[in-house]
């Protein structure tokens, strides 16, 4: 059972790769349309991707998926035969089909059923495409025939051969020699023959020449081969389809009418090339002598089987848990190294030249290993961007606004977890960009812009962080309206005087939604505040920049990884704690005259004429009962995204360093004001402070709702 599950899991993982390749290919064809450079190999790659998904899906009984993939495949097949020239309309349908295919894959994975309507609609469009050109390969269409509606277009009579083939009985000779691997993977030859017998009259002869004596027999080995004579109306293609799932596990020779010249190796490549040859020449019977023969061992077919249509980069699929464990252990190694260094230092041996040199080398090695291991978790943002392309397509369809989607920096690598958690916020931002950002076509024309709007998604590395930007060339933020709505909703007092940037930031307030009507796309009132808290949870910040009439840009700045952060190691009433450096604006040692008591036990410090509330971390975390005199302490000025600031009072600053983040949630639970824990050089644990949460908990304006949302992991 678990093996079956594993295989299933592998299939879906492969599907993800294949869908990515599919999307890639379609985009490439898209680009090809413009300059009319039509690369057949790309279409082939796309075809193979769909074909592989279909093949796998059939093995797992995902009928809906198989069915749809088959229709899609038929269209692509016609396309690669050159009978359907891809244009914008065709590609639109193909993109939709690819989207739907990925839906079906997801549904298959979650054992769900996708609502029929959309699928039927797209399927009908696909069939329409085929009908519009030519119905290719009748033998291939056994499944779609069951529900195909009669094609309206007249078939262009270029390929008379198909017609002939359907009517005449052909006599095929199939020589089938299974390898041991065929049996090992659970295939059964009798089932194959049974399937063949459905195609026509069958005569099977078994060849036992290679069968050794009983005492020499190896039960795992394959000794038998078969010669099958099949009298059928079907094309050779249909015959080969029967053997589709034992592809590569057997030697298969199919020849017409006992023809002596046979081609070997039933690999995909052979088949594909042969198909092409046939489609272009229209004489399938000649393929055996045609120069397009490709042997199964050719490198082309080898790579293709492993990973269709993705670049030459070899990859390994590894369980994420294993990687995490490795990261953990490497983290330990680094700590251990620090402890060792300390011990040697304490023993007074550090002056010995050789020892200190190798110790330094050890340290560098440990760091290098740590960095490399961290890099394993990094992934390119490409799949994420591809998902977003789909969101744009859907959003532009629903909103009736044409939108072009541009991406930049797809190869930027970010921690896998970050990518996963970015999906929802980015989806929201992209939808917003199309729905709210872009103006309707008439308005765009009036403003002298092209009717088709542009939504751009970029990713780049900036000083140790990842910067992701979503921009549109729409009307920009209507600040007056935003201000008015914020006042109406009671989010700000009516007489507030706000700067442009401050008005833009109002969009991030909970419960703010500018859409007058709740549209299908956005405007449910759970808007940008959720986006912001999701980004903040990842240790990132989101900001907004808008130019009236020119468009809006939203930037997300994220850490490269969730596994480490730069922290300031501080002393809080005898306890060592870590404050994330990203939160700290500045550190200061206050003068006594800058500190003013406010109320019973609150104090504020004046920093360049601005009064900032002081929070004694020792008191907040219960490490001391009564506040220590602030003037003896160091203040860390922290700022929230809402431009609130606080001064966190600590006893002293020890150090500034990169720390490995260790979750508290698994073994314990959430600790208020604490983001996570880390292990220090001496092996002890220090808690990492969440400055905003700490401040909110101690401050008078505890934003409980917001906190609660942030706390759920």
């Amino acid at each position, binding site marked *: 059972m678990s093996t079956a599950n594993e295989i299933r899991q592998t299939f879906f993982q492969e599907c993800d790769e294949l869908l990515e390749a599919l999307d890639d290919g379609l985009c490439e064809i898209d680009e090809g349309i413009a300059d009319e450079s039509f690369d057949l190999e790309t279409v082939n790659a796309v075809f193979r991707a769909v074909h592989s998904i279909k093949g796998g899906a059939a093995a797992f009984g995902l009928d809906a998926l198989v069915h749809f993939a088959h229709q899609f495949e038929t269209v692509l097949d016609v396309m690669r035969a050159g009978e359907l020239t891809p244009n914008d309309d065709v590609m639109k349908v193909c993109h939709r089909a690819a989207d739907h295919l990925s839906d079906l894959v997801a549904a298959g994975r979650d054992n769900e059923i996708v609502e029929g309507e959309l699928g039927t609609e797209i399927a009908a469009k696909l069939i329409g495409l085929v009908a519009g050109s030519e119905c290719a390969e009748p033998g291939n269409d056994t499944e779609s025939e069951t529900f195909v509606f009669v094609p309206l277009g007249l078939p262009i009579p270029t390929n008379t051969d198909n017609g002939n083939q359907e009517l005449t009985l052909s006599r095929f000779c199939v020589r089938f020699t299974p390898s041991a691997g065929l049996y090992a993977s659970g295939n059964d030859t009798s089932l194959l023959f049974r399937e063949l017998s459905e195609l026509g009259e069958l005569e099977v002869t078994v060849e036992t020449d290679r069968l050794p004596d009983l005492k020499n027999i190896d039960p795992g080995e394959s000794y038998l081969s078969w010669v099958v004579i099949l009298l059928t109306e079907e094309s050779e293609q249909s015959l080969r389809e029967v053997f589709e799932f034992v592809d590569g596990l057997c030697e298969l020779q199919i020849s017409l009418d006992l023809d002596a010249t046979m081609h070997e190796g039933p690999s995909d490549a052979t088949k594909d090339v042969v198909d092409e040859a046939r489609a272009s020449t229209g004489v399938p019977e000649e393929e055996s002598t045609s120069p397009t023969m490709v042997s199964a061992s050719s490198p082309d077919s080898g790579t293709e089987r492993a990973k269709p249509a993705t670049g030459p980069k070899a990859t390994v699929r590894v369980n994420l848990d294993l990687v995490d464990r490795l990261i953990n252990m490497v983290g330990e190694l680094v700590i251990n190294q620090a402890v060792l260094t300390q011990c040697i230092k304490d023993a007074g041996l550090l002056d010995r030249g050789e020892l200190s040199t190798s110790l330094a080398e050890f340290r560098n090695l440990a760091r290098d290993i740590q960095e490399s291991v961290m890099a394993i978790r990094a992934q390119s943002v490409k799949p994420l961007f591809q998902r977003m392309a789909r969101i744009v397509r859907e959003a532009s369809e629903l909103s009736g606004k044409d939108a072009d989607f541009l991406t930049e920096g797809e190869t930027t690598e970010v921690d896998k977890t970050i990518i996963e958690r970015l999906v929802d916020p980015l989806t929201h931002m992209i939808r917003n960009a199309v729905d709210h950002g872009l103006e309707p076509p008439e308005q765009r024309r009036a403003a002298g812009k092209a009717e088709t709007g542009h939504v751009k998604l970029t990713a780049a590395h900036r000083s140790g962080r990842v910067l992701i930007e979503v921009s549109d060339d729409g009307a920009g933020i209507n600040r007056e309206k935003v201000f008015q709505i914020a006042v109406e909703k009671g989010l700000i007092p009516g007489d507030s005087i706000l700067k442009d940037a401050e008005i833009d930031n109002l969009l991030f307030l909970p419960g703010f939604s500018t859409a007058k009507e709740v549209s299908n796309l956005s405007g449910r009132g759970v808007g940008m505040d959720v986006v912001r808290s999701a980004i903040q949870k990842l240790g990132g910040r989101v900001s907004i920049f808008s130019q009236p009439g020119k468009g809006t840009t939203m930037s997300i700045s994220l850490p490269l990884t969730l596994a480490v952060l730069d922290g300031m190691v501080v002393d809080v009433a005898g306890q060592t704690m870590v404050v994330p450096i990203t939160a700290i604006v500045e550190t200061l040692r206050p003068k006594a005259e800058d500190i003013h008591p406010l109320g019973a036990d609150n104090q504020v410090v004046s920093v360049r004429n601005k009064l900032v509330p002081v929070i004694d971390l020792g008191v907040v975390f219960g*490490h001391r009962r009564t506040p220590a005199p602030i003037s003896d302490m160091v203040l860390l000025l922290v700022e929230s995204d809402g431009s609130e600031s606080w001064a966190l009072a600590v006893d002293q600053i020890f150090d500034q360093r990169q720390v490995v983040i260790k979750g508290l949630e698994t073994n314990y639970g959430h600790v208020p004001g604490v983001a996570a824990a880390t292990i220090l050089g001496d092996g002890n644990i220090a*808690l990492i402070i969440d400055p905003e949460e700490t401040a909110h908990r101690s401050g008078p304006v505890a934003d409980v709702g917001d906190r609660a949302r942030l706390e759920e992991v």
Partner: protein
Amino acid sequence: MAETQIADSGLRELVTFRVGQQDFCIDIMMVREIRGWTPATILPHAPPFVLGVINLRGSVVPIVDLSARLGLRPSEPDDRHVIVIAVVGTQTVGFLVNAVADIIGINQSEVQPTPDVASDATRAFIEGVIVTEERMLRVIDIKTVLPKSMETAEAG
């Protein structure tokens, strides 16, 4: 899961230890390791019986003072105290005890229901008692002595 399997076969192995002046035991399948006391990093806002967290080869493991948890006197941990690291589901927790005594094998039928006389605070954490050679062993229901999830932790 391991627990139920053992219960089915009837045979159980238990690690016995001393907390305060009393003998307790837990199922050996729960115990991952036993180690000496090391000072823990204090967790703010934690219930009094949570002494803090320690570094167990790279994972952050909370330490529960079993004595305080069972309603006995809070311990003052020193070098002679021992931490029993237990794994319950996905959670790894350390329990501070006075000393680990030995490992005993018993039949599930030997576990008697907790007598009514026991105080409520202690009884809630005990699934039964075993009487052997003049000793009474209290079998701890480990799930109940875990530090509760964050809501409870925050309240405490």
